[in-house]
Each structure stands twice: as structure tokens, then as C-alpha cells.
């Protein structure tokens, strides 16, 4: 009888001491990642939203919004990214991060703006919730009335009265969109930086001084302060787009 009781006790002890199965750690291979950032600058200094900068015309300007879309960035047959949305106010300098081998992207070409294969799709139902083109993410970068996206948004205030009083009572609004103004970039060389842990980064610069102070395409913010890419605004729209494309440079 003693042995019977003892055996039951040992059995209970064994059951109570049963361990959860320990999972062996799984070693996953590190997937190489490529991260693109865009640092807005004004000449030699980093640009900050709502800070004051002076154009070569002597006008003080503040930017309140700096946003743009890029699509189909690739090096030949190797596509780096399909579509990304840059929003300096909301997301800082980060533009996108994707899986990719740095050896394949020593040069890049692509669009500034939304390519025609996407531009006229339904922003609610044709793109997944995590797509930059979904209306929830596009937010004010989609013109529902024009069935298309705003490719580039530059907005801010200016002070064009050189009296030393920072009034900033004028605004500038550059909204570039419609298929006509799809921009094209070509970066023959892109120098990536090894950030460790299989991550390589490329920090592009966007010199917003160049929007106004372009040698061949100067924009006087006092008189050229608004475009929504309408038919009567073609000249300024093209100037803003041209200057923007030149303002964006690869590392």
C-alpha cells in the first residue's frame, strides 16, 4: 500500500513539474535594407518648418508644408520602390525603407509625382490601407475634383515688406499635379552609406532656396505666389516643377 501511495505521489509530482516545451531560437537571415531620407535645406543650412529664411530677392519666407510623391524609382530593371510619399511636417526626413541590395542601386531614375498608371485610380478602393496612395494616407494630396493626386506641395508665408517688421502676411502655395507635370529625375550616381545591421542609407538633399533662387528660372514670391497647376498657371507651375527637380540631389 505504501508503494502504491508513493507511486501516486511521484506521479503527481511528475505531472506538476512538466515543463513547457522550450522553442529553440530560430536564426533568421538578415535581409538587406535600403533607407532613403530627404533633408530639406535652404542653401547651406538645414531647413525647419516655420523658421525664417531669406531669398536672394531679400524676401523672408517660412515653409509650413513640404510634401511630394515619388513613383517607380529604379535602376534599370531593378525597382527600388513603387510609390512613396514624403511629408516633412508629419514624418521628418524619412522617405521610405525597403528591402534591397545596395549593389543594385548605384544609380536611380524615377518620377516626382504619381505616374499615370496610378494617378486616376480610386484612392479609396484601389489601394491597400498601407499604400501611400490610399486616401487615408494621401489626405490632402488628392484632388477629388480633378481625379488625381497633388504631386508636390510647397506652402508657406512670406514677408515682402523690407521694414524689419516680421509681418508674414502673405502666403505662397505651390501645388503641382496633373499628368502634364509629372516630373522625371535621373541620378547617375547614388552613394549609399553603410549604417550597419545590413542597412544602407541614402540622404538626398532638397534645397528649397533653389525654388526661388534658380539662375535661369527665378521665382519672385511677391508676385509668383500661387499655382494649383491650372491652365492659366502653366508658366509658374512649370517653373516650380523645374526648380524642384533641380533642388533634389542625390548623395
Amino acid at each position: 500500500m505504501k508503494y502504491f501511495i508513493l507511486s501516486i505521489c511521484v506521479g503527481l509530482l511528475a505531472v506538476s513539474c512538466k515543463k513547457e516545451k522550450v522553442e529553440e531560437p530560430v536564426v533568421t537571415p538578415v535581409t538587406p535594407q535600403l533607407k532613403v531620407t530627404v533633408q530639406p535645406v535652404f542653401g547651406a543650412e538645414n531647413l525647419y518648418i516655420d523658421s525664417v529664411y531669406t531669398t536672394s530677392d531679400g524676401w523672408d519666407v517660412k515653409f509650413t508644408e513640404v510634401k511630394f510623391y515619388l513613383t517607380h524609382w529604379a535602376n534599370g530593371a531593378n525597382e527600388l520602390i513603387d510609390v512613396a510619399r514624403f511629408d516633412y511636417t508629419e514624418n521628418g526626413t524619412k522617405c521610405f525603407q525597403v528591402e534591397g541590395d545596395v549593389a543594385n542601386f548605384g544609380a536611380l531614375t524615377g518620377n516626382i509625382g504619381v505616374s499615370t498608371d496610378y494617378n486616376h485610380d480610386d484612392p479609396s478602393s484601389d489601394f491597400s490601407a498601407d499604400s501611400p496612395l490610399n486616401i487615408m494616407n494621401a489626405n490632402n494630396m488628392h484632388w477629388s475634383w480633378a481625379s488625381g493626386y497633388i504631386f508636390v506641395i510647397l506652402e508657406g508665408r512670406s514677408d515682402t515688406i523690407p521694414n524689419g517688421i516680421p509681418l508674414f502676411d502673405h502666403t505662397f502655395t505651390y501645388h503641382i499635379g496633373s499628368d502634364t507635370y509629372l516630373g522625371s529625375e535621373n541620378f547617375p550616381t547614388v552613394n549609399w552609406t553603410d549604417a550597419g545591421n545590413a542597412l544602407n542609407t541614402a540622404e538626398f538633399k532638397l534645397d528649397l532656396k533653389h525654388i526661388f533662387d534658380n539662375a535661369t528660372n527665378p521665382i519672385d514670391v511677391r508676385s509668383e505666389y500661387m499655382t494649383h497647376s491650372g491652365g492659366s498657371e502653366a508658366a509658374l507651375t512649370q517653373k516650380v516643377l523645374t526648380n524642384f527637380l533641380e533642388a533634389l540631389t542625390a548623395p
Partner: protein
Amino acid sequence: MNRLLFVILAGIVVFQACKKDQVGYQTTPYELAIPSHFPDMPIPEDNPMTEEGVLLGRMLFYEKQLSGDNSISCGTCHSPETAFSDANQFSTGIDGIQGNRNSMALVNLGWQTSFFWDGRSHTLEEQILEPVPNPIEMHQTWTKAVGKLKQDVEYRNAFYRAFGTVDFDSTHVSKALAQFLRTMISGNSKYDVIYKYVNSIPFSAQDQQVWNTITTDELAGYDLFQSLNGADCFHCHNGPLMQVQKFSNNGLDAVFTDLGRGIITGNPADNGKFKVPTLRNIELSAPYMHDGRFATLDDVIEHYSTGIHQSATIDPLIEFASQGGVQLDPDQRLLLKAFLKTLTDQEFVTNPNFQPLNP
């Protein structure tokens, strides 16, 4: 002794063998009726939509026990009669105290990325936790509010059915209310048909019927609304939600008595900015603006037409601020108002599923 020990051990063995798993509760997934031209609604992973949760949320929305003296509910200041807003400029709390901001209309909240006029809450669940303990609103601790609900067997059952617990707290109340509020979708107005037409989205038979009732004045008003040289409203009121998710200073004041978003961020560049609201059901949700200063749509149109005040943070998209506004003439104002009324969604405001369970 051995026999006694044997009986005890045998009893333990039998008890162990007979121990049952806890009986589970069963919820029914709730299928949101999202209009075809709307994006998917993001639902928090920790608060999935269920029939039981939505029903409980609806009970709670009209539950006056959530207020300190059992006199007001959420539905008091967000009344179905006024498109789930308050007809008063400022709502009055249980102690007779008024706030300084107008109650926002509750509609399409599932797509919002910030809540309150100053955006101080980032989620619906977070927002819901505020009015109950707020001394100028329902003025009651959550402990007391939940304590009252726990006295009610109907609520105990409803919380168990929704969340599998009778030991519920403010978090469960918030989740249930959020589920109910996410069902309050408005996407069936004349404007929605205009939106589909403009964006080449196929019409249903019902859409075609609605389209046939849209007047030339309403369409002319829509053109004005979208026109850069007309009313120029579309920058901030756009898309299926009829709003963009941002904070804006729309030129109400040259000097701010309410700093709005600036209070939250501490950034002077945000002073005088408020959340851009939807214009859905705008005809029914007077008064207007964050402080309810405008009683009628005519007052609002007058503001944008000639009443804009310059200030350091005015939205650059108020493009005619330097001349005081967009300068609409009387005929244009009538057309614009005709269009604004196309945003009324009668199916939404009279939806029986949004009304009190026991009116």
C-alpha cells in the same frame, strides 16, 4: 491512516481529472456597412467590432448614469436631432457650467486621426474617456460611473456578452462606445453621388435616381466650392470624408482668445489652429466653428467671403485673405449654400440603429 491518505489522494486525482476549462463567451463579428467609395476603416486590434460590443455601446451612448447626477448622456450634447451635435453654442454640464467650444458632430469617426477641436486625443477610445470625469461636463469619476453600471444586471450581462467579464471598467466602456461610434457612417447623400460622378465611380440604380434629383443650382454650387477663384473650399473639405486631416487657422480672429492646437503642442506656429471638421450634414449641425460663433450657413459663407482676419498662423490656403475673403456675390452665396445642403444624409440622421434603444 493509510486508507485515509489514499482517499484524500484519490479525491485529488478525481478533482484534477474533472477540472473543466472556463466556459468561454461567444461574440459575433460586426460587419461595417462601408460605402464603396470610402476607404477601409482602420479598426484597433484590441477592440474588434462585435454585435455585442456595438449594442452595448449604443446603450451606453444614451446612458445618463454616466453623469454625476444621472441627468445627461453622450447623446445629450450629441443629439440625433442635430446630426449628433449640440444646437447650443456651448454645451452645459451637470453643474450648469459651459465650456468654450462647440460640441463636434459625430460622424465617420472611424476614419479620424485626431479627436477634439485641438486634437488632444489620438484614438476614439482615448477620447471617450474624457467627458465623464470632466468637471464641466458629466463630472463623475469613472469608478463611480462604472459602479453604477455594475448595479444593473442588464449591464452586467451586456458587458459579459461583449467582453466576457462582469468585472468591467472604464476601458470596457470606452471600447464599447467606440465600437458603436464606428458604426455611425454617413456616405449616402447627394454629395456622394456627385463625388462618384466626378471620380468616374459606377452608379448603383439608387445613385442614378439620386443623380436625377440633383439640381443645376446644386451642381453650380459644387463648381464654386471646388473653384480656386470661387469659394475655394476644397483645400480643406475634400474627398469622401469631406475634410482633410489637419489643423488650420481659417482666419476667424486676428488675436486669439483660444489658442487651440497651440495649447496642445506648445508651438506658437499652431496658435489659433483647430481641427478641420467634416462638412457632412452641415445643414443640420449648427452652430458652426470651434466656438459655435456662427448660427447659420449664411454667417459661415459671409465669413469666408468678406470676414477673414489676417494673423501670423493663418492657413496659406486661405488664399484671398489679403482681401478679406473670396468675395462671393449674393447669387454665388445661394448656389454655395444649395451645394452645402447636398451633404445632408437623411438615411444617416434617421438611422434607427443610432437612436436610443428605449426612447
